[in-house]
């Protein structure tokens, strides 16, 4: 047990330099990009005088290092600063938008697992058969389709033709959220399931070649038991790792998919904030998303170790 806690402690400590590194990267990269938030605020009434007033109000007339120091000082105190564009704190904006994105990612993850686990297993069991071929071609096609286009195709078919799901929006209440998020989650899930299905299929095939599988069968254990206890359990470990690593892919997809389906999530907030140079919101959102990815990577390691006794906590 101490090994486990020590492992967790070390990994959490390792997060600190990663997060600080992210803050530096995000802060300075963003300020390197030309464009001025005062322009967004003033619109066509931009004058150098009015812009200078706004720069002073926002502290943008300070040297960059001072601005970074202020940002970090606030961060340590749990604050992200006030949005330049919206009339509220960046923290509360992010808190409002976070649930939609988390739900979308979780939903997409679940759908991807529901689609890819059976498909990967069956394709491996019937290698070379019609189902296997269809799966391989199908996953290739869904992987090749860009999410923004695929999303629109899903809308056209499921929302417009069959009228089963809404065109866009987020809805009110949990069940309504699930209904509204089905098509966007499916858009992400289908692209994501390609990687999962193919990984699982390959992993199943290689596990089935192992000697211990033959040994188990020779010992008289039923095919189903061998499959579930030995083959799938071994093969599923690879899925967990791939799932964790590709979470960044999911987060990236939400940015586009939220825009197509008008979901008020972090992705949409981030795009709008970058466009309007809303520095505190971009910094805050990136930080939250980066932290989320790092955290899931950590969880992946933990789950991986729990599933596979051969992985040590050292």
């Amino acid at each position, binding site marked *: 047990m101490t090994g486990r806690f020590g492992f967790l402690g070390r990994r959490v400590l390792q997060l600190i330099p990663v997060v600080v590194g992210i803050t530096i990267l995000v802060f300075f990269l963003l300020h390197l*990009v030309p*464009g*001025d938030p*005062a*322009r*967004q*605020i*003033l*619109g*066509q*009434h931009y*004058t150098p*005088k*009015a812009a200078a*007033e706004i720069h002073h109000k926002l502290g943008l007339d300070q040297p960059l290092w001072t601005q970074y120091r202020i940002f970090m000082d606030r961060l340590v105190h749990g604050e992200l600063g006030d949005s330049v564009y*919206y*009339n*509220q704190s960046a923290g509360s904006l992010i808190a*409002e*938008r976070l649930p939609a994105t988390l739900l979308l990612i979780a939903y997409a993850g679940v759908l991807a697992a*529901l*689609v890819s*686990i*059976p498909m990967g*297993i*069956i394709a491996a*069991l*019937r290698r070379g058969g019609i189902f296997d071929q269809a799966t391989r071609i199908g996953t290739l096609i869904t992987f090749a389709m860009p999410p923004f286009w695929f999303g*629109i195709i899903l*809308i056209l078919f499921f*929302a*417009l033709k069959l009228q089963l*799901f*809404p*065109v*866009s*929006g987020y*809805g*009110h209440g949990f*069940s*309504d959220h699930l*209904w*509204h*998020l*089905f098509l966007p989650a*499916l858009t992400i899930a289908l692209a994501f399931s390609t990687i999962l299905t193919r990984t699982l299929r390959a992993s199943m095939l290689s596990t*089935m*070649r192992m000697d211990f599988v033959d040994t188990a*069968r020779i010992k008289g254990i039923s*095919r*189903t038991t*061998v*499959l579930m206890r030995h083959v799938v359990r071994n093969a599923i470990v690879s899925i967990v790792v791939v799932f964790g690593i590709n979470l960044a892919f999911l987060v990236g997809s939400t940015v586009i998919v939220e825009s197509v*389906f*008008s*979901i*008020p999530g972090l992705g*949409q907030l981030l795009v709008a904030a970058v*466009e*309007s140079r809303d520095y505190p919101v971009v910094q805050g959102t990136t930080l939250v998303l980066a932290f989320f990815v790092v955290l899931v990577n950590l969880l992946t390691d933990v789950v991986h170790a729990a599933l596979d006794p051969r992985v040590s906590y050292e």
Partner: protein
Amino acid sequence: MPDLPDTPTTSSRRARRARALALLLALAAGAIAAGCGGGGGSTGAGGGGAKADTLVIANAVNVDTLDPAANSVNESIWMTQNIYERLLQPNANGTDVVPQLAKSWDISDDGLTYTFHLGDHKFSDGTPVTAEDVRYSIERSIHYEGGWGFLLEAVKSVEAPDPKTVVITLSRPHAPLLADLAMYAYAVVPEKLLKAQGAKTFFQKPIGSGEWALTQWNKGSDLTFKVNPYWSGEKPNFSTLKIMIVPNDNSRVLLLQNKNADIIENPPGNLINELSANPDLQTYLFPSTRVDFIQLDQHFPPFKDPKVREALNYAIDRNAIVKLAYSGHATVGSSFMPYKMQYWNDSLKPYPYDPDKAKELLSQSSYPNGFKTFLIEVANDVAGNATAVVIKSDLAKIGIDVDIRTYELLTAYDKEDGGNSQMGQRYWTNDIIDPDEVTTFGVDPQGGANAFSSYWGDPTATKLVHQARGELDTTKRQQMYEQIQQIVYDQSPYLILDYSPYRYAAGKWVHGFHATPLGNYNLSLETLTVDQH
């Protein structure tokens, strides 16, 4: 062999079971989700009867703030105009101001004192609108940092001698005062409530005396309004107004086609004809105050030469731009002032497309063999990108080589200002109906915007801008503004291209929707009807 050894007797049954399980798993999520969503269906109104009780509008741009003093984004401004009232408001055609909170007003003979008499209006929480609320709101907006105070620099004091009277005293005659006060930034908020809650809290769920009271605001998603129970005007024909925020152009069109929205803002220009052809839908092109033009920065020597600027005017085929960029749904431009707004000079005619004359003019200039220049355009602006292509091709014909440089919006603006630019795509829209605003920004070199960043200035035009601002005689003002427009037309410090309209599409079940040239549609919501659909 990778396949597991199988027992022949059980193989087919197991395979069937596995297949069925896989299919079930794949379908389960969709079925559950579809079942769960039963209650959240139509956003439009359903059921029997002739009229619907809800109007759903899908906007393209998010609402950033509902604080009128801080507003600068159109879609947010239109929301605040539903919520609050001002002393006066522009009429439906944007040609004059009409009463709103003030039922009447008197102007002293010297034009320095304006006395407004308030009608009986109530905020949506039932408290009456007082002169003190008006005074507080106007002063708050005047002093709001980065706000619109510069419009009312002539105001010396705002007083509320009794609950129904507001007196505004000026330090000098200021002809646009009524138009300025009709601007969204000078909307009236309840002083006591705002002070008690603090601005940050208040503007999350603000209270106003306008026709619509905000009941729900899901940031980045939607806003719901109910009719203000204390609204003093005529009750609208529907009780709920829902605004959806749908940034993706295609998604908005699909929402309308699916009848989940009744009206959509800004359908893509290239879909206007297709949408009009749909028997269930209608499209609207409302005259706006938008003027599309090309900035010519005079720090670039060729643009200092009036002959070059004149040549450019004849070289550009404006009809081709209107056709290509707006599918013909725009008007070819002449004056720099918004189309047919107050004091618009209708004697000016658009420069005709005449490449031969352009060549001749260029040969008389200091650059007879042409020159190389660049044109800044904004990425993802479909109409703007089409315009840039026409300009490049037209100017190539007279020996001017244009390099199109594409930047993201704020970067493009940054590059266009500051005196290092050459050609840049720009546009203007009015916030007030009076031409004082556009002439200050577009003509007066001291107006703060360096005459639309052209760094051009003409002493006569500048003098006229100042005189017209203080002139209370409308006939004289008309003459002054016509003269200013003539000077700008002749000297062409920027190339006026076209006047593009506001685009909307709606279901045929919507009757009476109308946006004013300033873009607000709150007036039409008072009489609009929605059929069941």
